[in-house]
C-alpha cells in the first residue's frame, strides 16, 4: 500500500525547520519556486539559514522575502542578480555568498541525493571556483573534484502530485526541483494540484515519491514573470 505523505498545508510542511539549518529551494529565477513554503518560512522567522538555490529571488518575491527579514546567513547560488537588498547585505558583510557554476550546483545536488560524495567536472578549472579543490587530468583535460550537497530540508514546487509524493512538473518550472528533492533529508513538495492516488500515469512521473517526505496543495500561486517578453500581435 502506497506510503502517504500528505500534510495539511505549509505550516505542517515546514514543521521542524530551525534556525541555523541548511535549506534547498527549487526554482530558476521566479519560475517553479516553492512560493507557499517561502511565505511560511517568513512567518516562522527562523534565522541564520543557509539557503541553496540557483537564484536569490527579487526584492519583494521569492527568497528576497527571507532576505528582507534577514533570515538568511549564507546563500549558495549560481546567479544572484536582480535583488538590491541582497547586494546591500552582501556588501555590508551581513550575508555570506558562495557562488557555484550552475551545472556543478545541479550535479552536486543530484550527487547528494544519490550517495555519490564527489565527482570530477571540467567546469571552473583555472578559475576562483577551483581554489582549494583537487585537480586531475582525464584524457589530457584538467577537471576539478566537486563534492555532494545535501540539506536538512528541501522545498520544491511541482505542478501535480499524489499522496505518495510522486511529482509532475510543468515546462521549465522543473529546473532544480527534482535534484533538490533528492538531496533533502526532509523534502517538502508543494503542488498546484494534489491528485488522487493512481491518477498519475506511473510512466509519466518526473520525480518518484520516494524522494518526498511531505506534500501539500498550495492555496494560491502568484507565479510572477521576471522578464515578460512578447511579440505584439500586429507585428507578428
Amino acid at each position, binding site marked *: 500500500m502506497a506510503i502517504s505523505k500528505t500534510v495539511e498545508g505549509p505550516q505542517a510542511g515546514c514543521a521542524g525547520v530551525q534556525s541555523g539549518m541548511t535549506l534547498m529551494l527549487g526554482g*530558476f*529565477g*521566479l*519560475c*517553479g519556486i516553492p512560493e507557499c513554503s517561502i511565505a511560511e518560512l517568513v512567518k516562522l522567522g527562523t534565522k541564520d539559514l543557509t539557503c541553496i538555490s*540557483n537564484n536569490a529571488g527579487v526584492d519583494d518575491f521569492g527568497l528576497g522575502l527571507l532576505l528582507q527579514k534577514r533570515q538568511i546567513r549564507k546563500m549558495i*547560488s*549560481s*546567479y*544572484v*542578480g536582480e535583488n538590491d537588498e541582497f*547586494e546591500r547585505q*552582501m*556588501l555590508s558583510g551581513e550575508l555570506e*555568498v558562495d*557562488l557555484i*557554476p*550552475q*551545472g*556543478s*550546483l*545541479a*550535479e552536486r*545536488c*543530484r550527487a547528494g541525493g544519490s550517495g555519490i560524495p564527489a565527482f570530477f*567536472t*571540467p*567546469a*571552473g*578549472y*583555472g*578559475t*576562483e*571556483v577551483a581554489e582549494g579543490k583537487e585537480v586531475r587530468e582525464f584524457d589530457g583535460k584538467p577537471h576539478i573534484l566537486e563534492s555532494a550537497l545535501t540539506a536538512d530540508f528541501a522545498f520544491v514546487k511541482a*505542478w501535480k502530485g499524489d499522496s505518495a509524493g510522486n511529482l509532475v*512538473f*510543468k*515546462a*521549465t*518550472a*522543473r*529546473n*532544480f*526541483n*527534482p*535534484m533538490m528533492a533528492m538531496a533533502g533529508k526532509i523534502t517538502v513538495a508543494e503542488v498546484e494540484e494534489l491528485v488522487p492516488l493512481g491518477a498519475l500515469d506511473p510512466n509519466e512521473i*518526473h520525480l518518484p515519491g520516494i524522494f518526498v517526505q511531505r506534500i501539500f496543495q498550495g492555496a494560491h500561486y502568484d*507565479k*510572477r*514573470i*521576471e*522578464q*515578460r*517578453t*512578447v*511579440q*505584439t*500581435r500586429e507585428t*507578428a
Partner: protein
Amino acid sequence: MLDKNGIAKRIAQEVRNGWYVNLGIGIPTLVANFIPEGMEVEFQSENGILGMGPFPMDGDEDADLINAGKQTITAMPGAVYFDSATSFAMIRGRHVQLTVLGAMEVAQNGDIANWKIPGKMVKGMGGAMDLVASAENIIVAMMHTNRAGASKLLPSCSLPLTGVGCVKRVVTNLAVMDIKDGAFHLVERAPGVTVQDIAAATAGKLVIPENVPEMNID
C-alpha cells in the same frame, strides 16, 4: 562597423545544419533571428528546454516557460523539457555543438572573463563556466572595445577568469578573429572597417594575413 544585429547575423553564418546551439544573454540571443528558414537547428536553454521558439504572442506568455535569461518564450514542435542536471549533462557531455556568449575580456590564449569585476557587485557565473569548460565550439560575441574605449582583446585577462584556453572564435563589431597559437588571427573585417582600425583596437597579439576579406552579411 557592425551593430549588435550585425554581429548576430555574422555569427548565424557559423551555425551548421544539425547543430544544437546554446545562446547566452544579450547579443547571442539575437543569433536565433538570423538562422535561415528550413535549417535544422535547435536552441538549448540551460534552465531546461531544447527546441526553444520565439517570444510568445502578447497574452500567451506562461510563467512556467522561460529561457535562461528569465524571458518568456515558446516551444517549437519536437521540443522537450528537462531538469537542470540533465541540461548540464548535455552541455558537459558535449552534446551541444555550439555555445555563443558575451565577454568582458578575451585573451590571446583563449581565456575568457565574463562574470566578475572585483570591487563591483558580483552576480554570479550562472551556467557560463560549465558552458565554456565543455563546448567544442565557443564563439564570443562582443564589442571590440569597452565603453571607455579600451580593447577587450588582450594579451591576458585582467579580470577573474570564467574559463581557460577555451575560446576559438571572436566576432565583434569590427572583425572576425580566430584564436590559435597564442594569438588573435584576423579572418574578416566588418564592412567599412580597415585592418588598421582593427589593429588599433586590439591590445593582444594580432596576426594579419595578406588578404583580409570584408564580411558578407546580406
